[in-house]
């Protein structure tokens, strides 16, 4: 592992804590679903925790992110409150979106999370617009734009990267290539091997990183963030990773083998990061266990909060359409 040089021990531990929190949040979400406590859909990023945490670790607190349908990890990594997330997941009035948004639309604009979107690629121009806003307001912020491999074949990806490039906007495009868009493997959807190679079409740096290596993600994104903050324009970073769970609740996973999934599980980004920290003496086994346990507890508290929270009131159903 690489790139840890710039990071304090505190920060490294915080990153591990966040990875555990994401894992715990999503495992709980999966359970709640199985118990029939959730109406709707959700997309889990278990196995992909390193991309969210590594990338966002490179940001200042006042920087922006845009997220995706698979966005729990981004929100937690950005410092989101798991209580409000869980309440939103359960459709409660106390949730981030007062129960109107649900899993696919968690946002916290105040804190710089410009939100998840259910439309693939839908957040890419949002990020470009936020970067334009930053450039015009001269605040020195940077925008991190998450999207999947599937989004990289959409027209809006192309228009957005081009605009960001010609205007040298402070945005970093982070492609979470988890090998599939629903059932579509990247090998069939793309004629090229690396999505990052598309950066050349926009004269921006393109880099492939191991998306299961949180420090490699951090290092690549940090470099791109520096570049963006210095006014040198956007970058495209492709994180190769994998989702362990089905695409969404209803996925039969006919498009991949158990062996493939098992092989990727061996590359668990959390276990890998822990092994590194233990080996470097930055973490003890007791601490490791405590962090994992705390994460579980935080999520249990969040569930308790969410479950005891009130439902939205039907009389208020039309509130918030217009400002």
């Amino acid at each position: 592992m690489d790139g840890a040089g710039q990071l304090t021990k505190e920060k490294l531990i915080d990153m591990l804590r966040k990875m555990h929190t994401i894992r715990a949040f999503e495992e709980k979400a999966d359970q709640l679903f199985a118990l029939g406590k959730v109406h709707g859909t959700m997309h889990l990023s278990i196995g992909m925790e390193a991309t969210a945490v590594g990338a966002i670790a490179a940001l200042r607190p006042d920087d922006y992110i845009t997220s995706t349908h698979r966005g729990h990890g981004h929100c937690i990594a950005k410092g989101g409150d798991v209580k409000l997330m869980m309440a939103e997941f359960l459709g409660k009035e106390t949730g981030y979106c007062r129960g109107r948004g649900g899993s696919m639309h968690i946002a916290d604009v105040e804190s710089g999370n410009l939100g998840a979107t259910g439309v693939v690629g839908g957040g890419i121009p949002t990020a470009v617009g936020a970067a334009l806003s930053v450039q015009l307001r001269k605040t020195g912020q940077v925008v991190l734009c998450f999207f999947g491999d599937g989004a990289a074949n959409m027209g809006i990806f192309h228009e957005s990267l081009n605009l960001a490039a010609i205007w040298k906007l402070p945005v970093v495009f982070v492609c979470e290539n988890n090998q599939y868009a629903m059932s579509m493997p990247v090998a069939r959807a793309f004629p090229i091997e690396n999505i990052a190679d598309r950066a050349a079409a926009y004269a921006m740096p393109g880099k492939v990183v191991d998306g299961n290596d949180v420090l490699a993600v951090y290092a690549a994104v940090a470099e791109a963030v520096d570049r963006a903050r210095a006014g040198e324009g956007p970058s495209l970073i492709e994180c190769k990773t994998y989702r362990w769970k089905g695409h969404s609740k209803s996925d039969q996973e006919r498009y991949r083998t158990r062996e493939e999934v098992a092989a990727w599980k061996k590359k668990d980004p959390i276990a890998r990061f822990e092994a590194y920290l233990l080996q470097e003496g930055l973490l003890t086994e007791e601490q490791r266990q405590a962090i994992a346990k705390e994460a579980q507890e935080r999520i249990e508290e969040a569930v308790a909060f969410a479950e005891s929270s009130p439902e939205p009131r039907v009389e208020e159903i039309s509130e918030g359409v217009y400002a």
Partner: protein
Amino acid sequence: MREITYAEAIREALRQEMQRDPHVFLMGEDIGVYGGAFGVTLGLLEEFGPERVRDTPISEGVIAGAAAGAALTGMRPVAEIMFMDFTTLAMEQLVNQAAKTRYMFGGKAKVPMVLRTPAGSGTGAAAQHSQSLEAWFVHVPGLKVVMPSTPYDAKGLLISAIRDDNPVIFVEQKLLYRTKGPVPEEPYTVPLSVAEVKRAGRDVTIIATGVMVVRSLAAAAKLAQEGIEVEVVDPRTLKPYDAETITKSVIKTGRVLIVHEAYKTCGFGAEIAAMISEGPAFMYLNAPIRRLAGLDIPIPYNRTLEYHAVPQEENIITAVRELMAYK
């Protein structure tokens, strides 16, 4: 007669038309091994192979545009957009190209394509996966718009749509995919632009589309117990729609309730209300024309809010009773 689901009826129409006509093929996201987000195309890849059941990358613009281009040059594509909300990405190709090609080219070309897409709320998928945008397409000359409410109609209308020489937007109802009904095994057509009276009655005409036909029939059954006889008309094709059948019913009953799931303002119900109030049925009206439609709000995630965002059986019953209060 054998009963199958709405989803199975659609699949059977696709299968039988693909067997009959080698020019028919399918394209869309995850329609192959995944079988589509709602399993509608399950098994077709195995039967027809990847040449004719084509998984595409996520790129709704080119899905619609390439379907139109293939149609213009002799094929009969059936494209799928996974959720109707994402037709927003294909409007240029559907509206400016597919719909207008024939007229713009002096009537000398044709674009025989079908675009299948599932619409509607009720699945907890929130604001960007629950819309019913059919009114947009009804507004566009050159397109046809079909919206079946039963397995029987789904199969027969889809076969008609595939055989039609125009671009047809085929709006499927998510909440109906698993509903069952009698469907003949052999291929048959239900003609486009012909409405059907799904239940006859003398007191009130309900004009309902898609899943609202089912809710209206349920409401009508209950209202019958109170002695109110509701006639339920299902336009089935929304563009060009069958004004005559609707008009005849309204002349008979003198009371009109229009029910759809889409946002009320500028929805398809507005068109039907306007058509009635400018046509021959106007002078037979005994009550104002009532629309019952989705609220003008994005579909909320919360289950209870979502339930209240669109018409339910009890709302239909109440609205009919209110109409009956006019003498």
